[in-house]
């Protein structure tokens, strides 16, 4: 049944996956890298090699910092399947994938899941209107297609928000305003971790530079406490309230939202790996040891998928998992593991600070209005969820059956944490006790004919 066997299969060709592949191939391990995009780079270095020949400067140094890694990866000799999505990993480590209309099964001795992060939803009133997009989505359009929109309003919190605004103005686009929702209390709870962050002066310095250049061109409004997006069939404007209580209206056709990123756990969850609730960062992450080894001895998780640490840390965790696998293959370790561990810690040190700083306030995590949609796929509103809670749903999976929230195409990627938190509020149980949706394959879209191709050609 199985078409091909590899010593190492790496899922995702972002910094973690690319770095891991460089390490395993150098040790001579038969390696496959699978990614559903057209080229390597993941979210952060998306389209880098194509952009590099054009070198649009607006993407900035932090983007081109990925050049060496991308080139090393291209030269490392790993098998690399693009446009190829993994939709299931079985307990016998069969990897089910789909590529260009066909499904296929491969097997591997070791698997590294390096599927990165997704953006946390920001379900303010009007967030599902056409014209509203996530900041990550806006940035992708800029990197991939050199597309942008003039006069957009950026709303939210976190480094990616400012980086994208900076790239926008460098690309010559006008930005109407930045509404920073980072609350005062977030600054307070983040403060004790500030010294750790100073261990990474370059990252802080970069942030300062962006901010300076942004402020020269754009209104940056801080301490924004409430946001509502208005419009009938598409965005017409938005209103916000600051800590002074003043309510201000802005006309806008494009609103870009961002509240930080969370691990993309759909594949690791569907694989049945153990996960833990990270109360400080407010997300689920797979349980791993220091090398990224999951509750399944054969499966490692590297990069943001194991806990958000950013691009540099992702590359190091990728190397770390790869080195551990190399060691388990009985090959001499390329470099002392400890060395990696130390650098790993070093890079993660700014995270406790950022986690606290950018954990969104509750009004940006859960809709404030009854009619605001929570599950986009099935158009389930906050009132619907409350209704289901009222009729006795006590967990996310039951709530699915009651309300259909999480039953759509995205399998709860967007609504999962909102629903979980609403249940926690309603029942008084902890987020960890409530648990998460049971995630089922296929974790990537697959058509009937593609699935049937494991058996043969679709009947005419």
């Amino acid at each position: 049944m199985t078409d091909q066997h590899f010593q190492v299969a790496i899922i995702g060709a972002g910094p973690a996956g690319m770095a891991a592949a460089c390490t395993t191939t150098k040790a001579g391990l038969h390696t496959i890298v699978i990614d559903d995009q057209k080229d390597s780079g993941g979210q952060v270095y998306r389209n880098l090699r194509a952009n590099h020949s054009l070198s649009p400067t607006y993407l900035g140094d932090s983007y081109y910092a990925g050049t060496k890694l991308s080139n090393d990866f291209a030269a490392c000799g790993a098998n690399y399947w693009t446009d190829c999505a993994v939709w299931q990993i079985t307990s016998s480590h069969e990897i089910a994938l789909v590529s260009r209309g066909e499904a296929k099964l491969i097997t591997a001795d070791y698997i590294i899941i390096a599927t990165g992060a997704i953006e946390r939803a920001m379900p303010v009133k009007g967030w599902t209107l056409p014209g509203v997009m996530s900041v990550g989505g806006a940035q992708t359009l800029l990197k991939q297609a050199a597309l942008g929109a003039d006069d957009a309003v950026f709303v939210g919190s976190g480094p990616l928000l400012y980086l994208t605004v900076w790239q926008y103005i460098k690309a010559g686009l006008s930005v109407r305003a930045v509404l920073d929702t980072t609350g005062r209390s977030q600054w307070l709870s983040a403060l004790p971790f500030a010294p750790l962050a100073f261990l990474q002066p370059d990252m802080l310095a970069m942030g300062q530079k962006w901010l300076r250049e942004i402020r020269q061109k754009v209104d940056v409004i801080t301490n924004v406490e409430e946001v509502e997006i208005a419009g009938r069939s598409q965005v017409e404007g938005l209103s916000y309230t600051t800590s002074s209580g003043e309510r201000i209206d802005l006309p806008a056709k494009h609103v870009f939202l961002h509240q930080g990123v969370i691990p993309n756990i759909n594949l690791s969850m569907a694989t049945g790996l153990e996960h833990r609730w990270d109360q400080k960062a407010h997300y689920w992450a797979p349980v791993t040891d220091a090398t990224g080894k999951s509750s399944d001895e054969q499966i490692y998780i590297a990069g943001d998928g194991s806990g958000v640490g950013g691009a540099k840390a992702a590359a190091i965790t990728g190397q770390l998992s790869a080195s551990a696998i190399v060691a388990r293959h009985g090959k001499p370790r390329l470099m002392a593991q400890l060395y990696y561990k130390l650098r790993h810690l070093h890079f993660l040190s700014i995270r406790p600070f950022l986690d606290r700083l950018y954990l969104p306030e509750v009004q940006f995590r859960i809709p404030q209005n009854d009619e605001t949609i929570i599950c986009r796929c099935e158009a389930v509103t906050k009132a619907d969820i409350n209704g289901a809670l009222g009729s006795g749903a006590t967990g996310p999976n039951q709530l699915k059956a009651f309300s259909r929230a999480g039953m759509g195409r995205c399998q709860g990627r967007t609504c999962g944490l909102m629903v979980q938190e609403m249940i926690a509020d309603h029942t008084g149980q902890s987020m960890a006790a409530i648990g998460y949706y049971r995630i089922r394959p296929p974790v990537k879209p697959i058509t009937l004919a593609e699935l049937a191709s494991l058996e043969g050609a679709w009947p005419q």
Partner: protein
Amino acid sequence: MATINDATVSVRRNTAAPTRPVVIIGAGIQGCATAFFLSQRGQSVIVLDKDHVGRHASGVNAGGVRRLGRDINEIPLSLVAMDWWHQINQLLDIEDGFHQQFYVKVALDDAGANLAGSRIQQLEKAGFKHEKWVEPEQLHRRIPHLTKSIIGGVLVEGDGWALPWRITRAFYEQAVKLGAEFRTPVSVQSVDYVGDHWQVTTNVGKLEADNVVNCAGAWGAQIAKMVGDDMPVEAHAPMLVVTDRQPLFLDAVIGVMGGTLSLKQLDNGSMVIGGGMRGVADPDQNKTQLTPVGLSKFVMTAGRVFSHLRDVSILRAWAGIEGYTADNLPFIGRGSQPGIIHGFGFSAHGFQLGPGVGEVLADLVMARQPRVDISPFAPQRFSKLS
């Protein structure tokens, strides 16, 4: 809310009352339907489930409500159940509870047509006329998208589908309205005969009962063992997929003769497709695993029936844990000791039977003669002792 320990006390205080409440183990459709019929007849009932109402097979099955293709021994029970299905809205105070359509097993080739012919003959000999051969022209007229090469099929008018979770839940809600008490999550650990009654020990306390009904599905054999009955079931995990929404094109449930498929289109346009293939069941952990090759097999069969669905996306695949007996007929009947009644091991076709099983199990609790012959389902039929 009263805890189970409080309840034990209140039950004891009630010793003046003529009977102790009936204890039902398992809140799937069989447990819920039994609780409903017993409550309707004025019995006091406590239902225990280690998880929650409809968490297992009864909440996640394909929802096929068919008499078509049943084992001859099972047909009388299936017909009784169907009477209830045809009045399910009034029975459970719901709307659109049952989507009455028709169910057809199509013949893909001559082998399929031959099977169909002998099946219909066999049924006629036994006096059943509900399954009928349908000619290809008529079939293609009724189901325009059907692949042209299909050469007919066996059809039952009035079969259809229902949303499994909704129906199980409705039996639960009506039972509660009629006074039944449900306690979840409460796991039964042992069932012992003490003096003149049964003592049911759970993870949160003990209960007393004169009658204990075992509706524990794939876990039924474990409960049977607690009361000294050897009733083997194997746990398996039949798999299903649900697709993206499509324009409505189908108002029938489709299977194939000599193959395994069930395909229906829900009101929202999604299709639910299944068919025999099993994933891996882990009943101790409440877990199931899907097997990609198994999924592809029945999806391919769907393609043989409706090739126009080729580019339809799958939203999700899942499996449920179900108990299978050696002859694929359920266990329904009295245990070897008085006061024990079994109803489990429905072998992946027990959803339709639910209302009929509820009625029969309620009869057995109340020492009434059921309307149908349940001897083919005898709990003792595989036991080493008999």
